[in-house]
């Protein structure tokens, strides 16, 4: 019988106390891997929100602010861009396409975004992926709307349903555009980006519902849906617009030109660069979490040390018997080290199983609550390194009881403490 089998059988004999240690190691491994995984997914889902868009242009503001409201629908624009300025800039030679966006309204907690059908044509996310329809098609009429996957799922909408938009971002009875209901004509596929939580309408639609509004309140002469259509529904201003260039090499030149635009103070940002910068600021949270998980691991390893040290007392007799049979001191060291390794490797496997179990159970919940989709993936090299580090750390910790057992076995000799 070799030592490994002996260590296995011995560990199995004391499984109750060791099992708790295995669980505590597993929890720290789950935490470490979980933080790492969530961090990576959050990063990729953040950086994947927009692709192929060379510039995002809005009224002058900080780059992060512009990024947050135009791409993530978080916060508000400080100012609008006039329609003339938009047309002027969209006309630049280097510009291949533009997608105007107009924000400000909402529907049951979801943001409403006015845009053109070019949005479905040019907008890309993830790995240059286009927005696809799960059902229906693009909007054609003024009162048509295309809703994101989450909106449809959460509110249970189907193509053909009528919805009422609210003025502003807080739904309140007195600020409903209830005189001009919209018809759902399309439902988008899930993208894992803020698109899923957006209600898309045409710019004309945005214009139409506000035609009889003034300074955030309904005017005294209401116009119904039909009457509104008779007016010119070209917007006077938009919130921001996305720009695709003929050639990516023009990016910096066009950016500078827009930033120095004379008629109106403008800001143009490169989404990739701003996203990366934004990620840097929020990744400190991840580092803090990682450090906390590290401490959990240390406490787990100390727990294991305590358990193994306390079992050494029960094992004095076992060790004396082995010594009597002819086990050398080095065998005793190996036996204790092997036990440590068995415990920690079992802990790592359990931890990995727990993270995948958690992933399966919690994935829908996390997507729902945080909008971060934790895709299934095998451990990457960094995560394997974490697991390897845990095992090496445990082996080092295991040297302590091993050396103690060795020294005791020399002292005790064949004297059995009954």
């Amino acid at each position, binding site marked *: 019988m070799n030592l490994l089998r002996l260590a296995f059988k011995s560990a199995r004999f004391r499984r109750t106390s060791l099992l708790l240690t295995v669980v505590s190691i597993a929890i720290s491994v789950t935490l470490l891997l979980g933080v790492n995984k969530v961090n990576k997914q959050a990063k990729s889902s953040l950086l994947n929100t927009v692709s192929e868009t060379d510039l995002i242009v809005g009224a002058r503001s900080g780059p992060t602010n512009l990024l947050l409201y135009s791409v993530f629908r978080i916060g508000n624009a400080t100012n609008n861009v006039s329609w003339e300025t938009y047309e002027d800039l969209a006309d630049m030679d280097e510009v291949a396409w533009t997608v105007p966006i107009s924000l400000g309204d909402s529907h049951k907690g979801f943001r409403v975004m006015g845009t053109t059908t070019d949005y479905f044509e040019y907008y890309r996310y993830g790995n240059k992926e286009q927005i696809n329809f799960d059902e229906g098609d693009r909007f054609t009429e003024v009162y048509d709307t295309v809703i994101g996957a989450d909106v449809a799922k959460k509110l249970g909408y189907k193509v053909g349903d009528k919805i009422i938009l609210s003025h502003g971002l807080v739904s309140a009875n007195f600020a409903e555009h209830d005189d001009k209901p919209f018809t759902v004509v399309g439902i988008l596929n899930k993208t894992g980006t803020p698109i899923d939580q957006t209600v898309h309408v045409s710019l004309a639609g945005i214009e139409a519902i506000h035609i009889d509004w003034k300074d955030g309140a309904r005017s005294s002469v209401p116009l119904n849906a039909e009457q509104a259509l008779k007016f010119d529904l070209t917007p006077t201003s938009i919130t921001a617009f996305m720009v695709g260039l003929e050639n990516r090499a023009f990016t910096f030149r066009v950016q500078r030109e827009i930033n120095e635009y004379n008629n109106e103070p403008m800001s143009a940002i490169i989404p990739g660069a701003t996203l990366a910068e934004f990620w840097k600021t929020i990744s400190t949270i991840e580092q803090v979490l990682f450090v906390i998980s590290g401490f959990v691991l240390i406490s787990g390893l100390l727990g294991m040390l305590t358990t193994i040290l306390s079992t050494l007392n029960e094992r004095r007799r076992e060790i004396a018997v082995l010594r*009597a049979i002819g086990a050398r001191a080095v065998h005793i060291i190996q036996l204790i080290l092997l036990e440590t390794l068995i415990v920690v490797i079992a802990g790592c496997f359990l931890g990995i199983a727990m993270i995948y179990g958690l992933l399966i159970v919690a994935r829908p919940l996390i997507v729902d609550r945080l909008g971060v989709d934790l895709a299934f993936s095998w451990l990457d090299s960094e995560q394997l390194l974490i697991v390897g580090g845990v095992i090496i750390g445990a082996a080092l910790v295991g040297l302590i009881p091993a050396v103690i057992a060795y020294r005791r076995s020399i002292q005790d000799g*064949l*004297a059995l403490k009954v």
Partner: protein
Amino acid sequence: MIVQLKQVKFRWPGQTSDIIDIEKLNIASGEHLFVRGPSGSGKTTLLNLLAGIHLPTSGKVELLGTDLASLASNKRDQFRADHIGVVFQQFNLLPYLTTLENVVLSCAFSQRKNDNASKSSEIETQAKKLLKALNLNEKMHSSPVNKLSVGQQQRVAVARALIGAPEILIADEPTSALDAENRDRFLDLLFQQAKAQSCTLIFVSHDPQLAKRFERSIELTEKYNVESSES
């Protein structure tokens, strides 16, 4: 002489008097020796000296012509593994192994025992033969040792000590946990098997009643001397 002790003295560092002080002790090959000593007379220390766990403070312990002090500590461990079998008072067995595994384990640490035990057949066959000779039937071989009675466990310990034909068997109070009837049966089987393997038996106990069953008995007195008497 298979065991020779010459002017062996032992004391722990810092102690003022010797625990062991043996002028001379010779044990012949195949001899069954009874060592009687009350508790505190240094019985366990003597066994540790014979097994090469401790080295004498002065004097010489020779087993099979080898001076134990001349061996490095891992060589002494190997020497013990190869040439000595040990039976304790109680709790001889590893509780997480079966009866058979406990016996076979002896050969795991000694190539010599391994070779001896597998000379004519497989080690496990040899172990089963020994167990059967010690009145432990086939059903008990695969059962966990804590299912066995104390008397049965002590016999398993004898099988483990004897497998692989070591020259010397050291027994430390192996019968103190047994009742009189079990004790006599245990001794019968122990003598019978030791004789069958022509193994030298060194049997230590505080119980003077056992002495009459041995060819020779010596006494570890509280004066830490050995008095020899033939019986």
